[in-house]
């Protein structure tokens, strides 16, 4: 689905590996027969179908891509401990940071200020994994950059739509610098959804959510 950060991860992984793929957009309000057949358990996108075999869950798909096209660009770190660290932070970002960011989108005023602060604490913890490095993956973009990378494109947008300030030079300097570096990578830039279209979609969503809150 064009606006899904989870689907973008898969595209980034495939593009870094130089693997050709056919992109099929799903209307999540009217899921296709193919999606329901390929992922009957959770019925979610993204689903990668490789030679008729479906793989679901974006973090799992990215590892699959790395293992299947193992001679291409390396996504996972080579060292098992570094791999464990990358998986740990990916899980932290998915479980904690995502949950901390969503409330910003649906709140205003004092309530929002409170959740912004909480989200910043969460992101500060994640930021420790960036210390002394250009990317989470080291000198080059890797698995963790791919998993967390959607923040770089989506967060500034969410900030604009919600009137909040989350990732700033004062609060999260390493993360802010990483946002710029990450979005400057050609392969990453090439797969981003159109900003204006995304902005319009999220503006409408926020209005709906805030008014019904």
């Amino acid at each position, binding site marked *: 689905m064009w606006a899904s950060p989870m689907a973008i991860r898969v595209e980034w992984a495939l593009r870094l590996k130089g693997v050709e793929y056919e992109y099929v957009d799903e209307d999540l309000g009217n899921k296709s027969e193919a999606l329901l057949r390929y992922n009957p358990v959770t019925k979610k996108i993204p689903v990668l179908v*490789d030679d008729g075999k479906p*793989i679901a*869950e974006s973090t799992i798909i990215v590892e699959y891509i790395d293992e299947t096209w193992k001679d291409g660009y390396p996504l996972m770190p080579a060292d*098992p401990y570094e*791999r*464990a660290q990358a998986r740990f932070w990916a*899980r932290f970002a998915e479980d904690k940071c995502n949950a901390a960011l969503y409330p910003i989108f649906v709140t205003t005023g004092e309530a929002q200020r409170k959740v912004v602060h909480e989200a910043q604490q969460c992101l500060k913890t994640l930021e420790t994994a960036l210390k002394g490095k250009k990317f989470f993956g080291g000198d080059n973009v890797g698995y963790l950059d791919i998993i967390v990378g959607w923040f770089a494109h989506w967060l500034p947008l969410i900030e604009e739509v919600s009137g909040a300030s989350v990732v700033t030079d004062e609060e999260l300097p390493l993360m802010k610098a990483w946002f710029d570096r990450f979005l400057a990578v050609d392969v990453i830039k090439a797969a981003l959804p159109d900003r204006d279209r995304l902005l319009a979609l999220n503006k409408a969503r926020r209005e709906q959510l805030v008014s019904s809150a």
Partner: protein
Amino acid sequence: MGDHELKLLGMWASPFVLRARLALSFKGLSYEYIEEEIFGNKSALLDKSNPVHKKVPVLIHKDKSICESQIIVEYIDEVFSGTGPSLLPVDPYDRAVARFWAAYIDDKLFSLFMMMIKGKTTEDKAKGRRHSFAVAETLEGALKGCSKGKSFFGGDNVGFLDIVLGGFVAWVHTRDILSRSKQFDAGKTPLLAAWLERFCALDATKAVMPDVEKLVELSKMRQARDDAAAAAVSQSN
């Protein structure tokens, strides 16, 4: 056996710790086990080695800490690939399928157990039980697909997914006793029921399985404590 320089911080009743212990057991790896108190203060070692979550299990390998039970299992499998059986499948697609079901188990099964244990009303608990049968049926399908007619999710031998689900086995037995029903009913989920028996009969499993009677006692004690807390709250309202 050799010194692998492994320490495991754990808690005897935790299904996530049990996963890590099962992995170490099936791989035949020796380690120092350090018990964290359930209701006590967290130890300095735990604070230091898992500063983000302060939870067990934590595997400490030569002074490096690895957290999160599934991540620990994968780490053990990768680092000690020459020792004992391989836990993750070799084929990337089979690995992706195993990881998918492992994520499903953590997402659905754990929250269901919580609903059944901590459910405020009998209705909550009943809802938990209904959903758990639905999840069990889905896992039955997963077992059928992954095992391809063999004994375990991993095929002929115990693998990653057996260990991931295996961590919950003590709680399954505990719930069976407390609810006087079967979580993995042989009538509804025959493969899963057979798997449970087979898995629990293995020496490597028995070596680390916690005492189910103690778990039943712990459950009752927790329930009594929760009930007392709830009663105190309603009295003060």
